[in-house]
């Protein structure tokens, strides 16, 4: 797609997402409404609000997993529909991620096959992800037998190995034992330090303070950013 296809006057350098006049209905009820939201590349943004306020729906909308919607969502300056960068560079990770049948290694390999990454490059990426996310001891384990924290780590590693530098994480540390939570939190901080763009929903105030650059509040589907620039 050419620059001409971009929504006029919306793209800014270093911008990951730009949302304008977004409205998404689910079963005749407005599930998410957002007048404007800009997420810069490398930012860590927390979505906070009560259960059912639209955080998860917003993350899924940004990743093009649900729709159709009114308004516009652009990723790296282009509308998310028919935007190859969206699948190339961003991945949504569920609160309770799904790992495919097979071992952890199979899961990493499968994600790389989906992206049609050549075998030699894929092997290198798996090695890097294994080292970076400390998965050495897990590679041969059956994915279905992992704990919640291990599953979350593998899901994030799978996304990063497949080339994602924009991660949309739904409650990444919820329902975890303390040890797993520490491991996942360390992983997310490492991703932030390395320049990944992180959008995550959370109830955990500690995680929000530690990880996020700013906050988007959700209340009964309405998203309100603490950044005035989002509406310009």
């Amino acid at each position, binding site marked *: 797609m050419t620059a001409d296809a971009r929504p006029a006057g919306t793209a800014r350098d270093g911008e990951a997402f730009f949302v304008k006049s977004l409205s998404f209905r689910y079963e005749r009820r407005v599930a998410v409404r957002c007048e404007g939201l800009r997420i810069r590349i490398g930012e860590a943004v927390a979505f906070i609000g009560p259960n059912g306020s639209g955080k998860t729906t917003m993350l899924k909308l940004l990743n093009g997993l649900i729709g159709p919607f009114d308004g516009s969502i652009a990723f790296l300056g282009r509308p998310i529909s028919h935007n190859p960068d969206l*699948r190339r560079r*961003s991945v949504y990770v569920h609160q309770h991620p799904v790992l495919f049948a097979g071992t952890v290694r199979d899961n990493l390999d499968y994600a790389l096959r989906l992206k049609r990454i050549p075998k030699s490059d894929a092997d290198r990426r798996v090695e890097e992800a294994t080292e970076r996310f400390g998965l050495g001891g897990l590679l041969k384990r059956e994915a279905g037998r992992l704990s919640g924290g291990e599953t979350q780590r593998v899901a994030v590693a799978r996304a990063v190995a497949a080339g994602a530098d924009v991660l949309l994480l739904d409650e990444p540390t919820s329902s975890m034992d303390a040890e797993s939570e520490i491991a996942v939190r360390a992983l997310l901080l490492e991703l932030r330090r390395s320049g990944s763009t992180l959008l995550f929903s959370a109830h955990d105030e500690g995680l929000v303070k530690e990880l996020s650059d700013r906050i988007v509040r959700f209340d009964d589907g309405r998203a309100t950013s603490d950044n005035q620039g989002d509406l310009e």
Partner: protein
Amino acid sequence: MTEAIALLAGGDRETWWTVATSLRFSVFSTLFAILPGVPLGATLFLGRFKGKRVAVALVNAVMAVPTVVVGLFVYSFISRSGPLGALGLLYGPGGVILGQAVLAFPLVAAMSYTGLQKLDPRYSETLLTLGAGPWRRMTAIIKEGRYVIVQSVLAAFGRVTGEVGVSMMLGGNIRWYTRTMTTTIALDASKGEFERALSLGLVLLAIALAVNFLSHLAVRDDR
């Protein structure tokens, strides 16, 4: 009833030929219904487009069309003056199989769609977010939902085995050629000859029970 059982147990040639012909038609028509029906069900499940609810409602509505109307519709296509008239399908096995496939196709699509909805939505979302293309997602979702797909296939098989309108209209109920269990039952009962009708009724009943039993097993395996 004793005579009916004797016909089956004695290996009456015409009775068993009719059973075999019915099953042959049903197997082929079900196969031809699966080929477009399962992908359509999966596409409706995976697709996100405006008008999806209308599309699903339409497929469900078509499922309720009476068999004689389906027969009439296909008849208009394969009759000598119809667009497919040159193929010579009318009053032959090809006509019955085509008509039954048209009858079963919306059933396969609607049941596949409904069945796939029982799957964990995170599975298809994970495939999408990881960059799986439409073909890969469709094949993966069909593989994941194989048990519900089997159920839809069994239901379609049961539907075409038990229908009479399409077979009568497009096959012509020609002895040793297109006569099926249901058309034989209709003909013999109208003549007051109940032995063969009853024997074939028993076979149909056994098939219906077997289909339901297998369908139930598929549900159990799904769990």
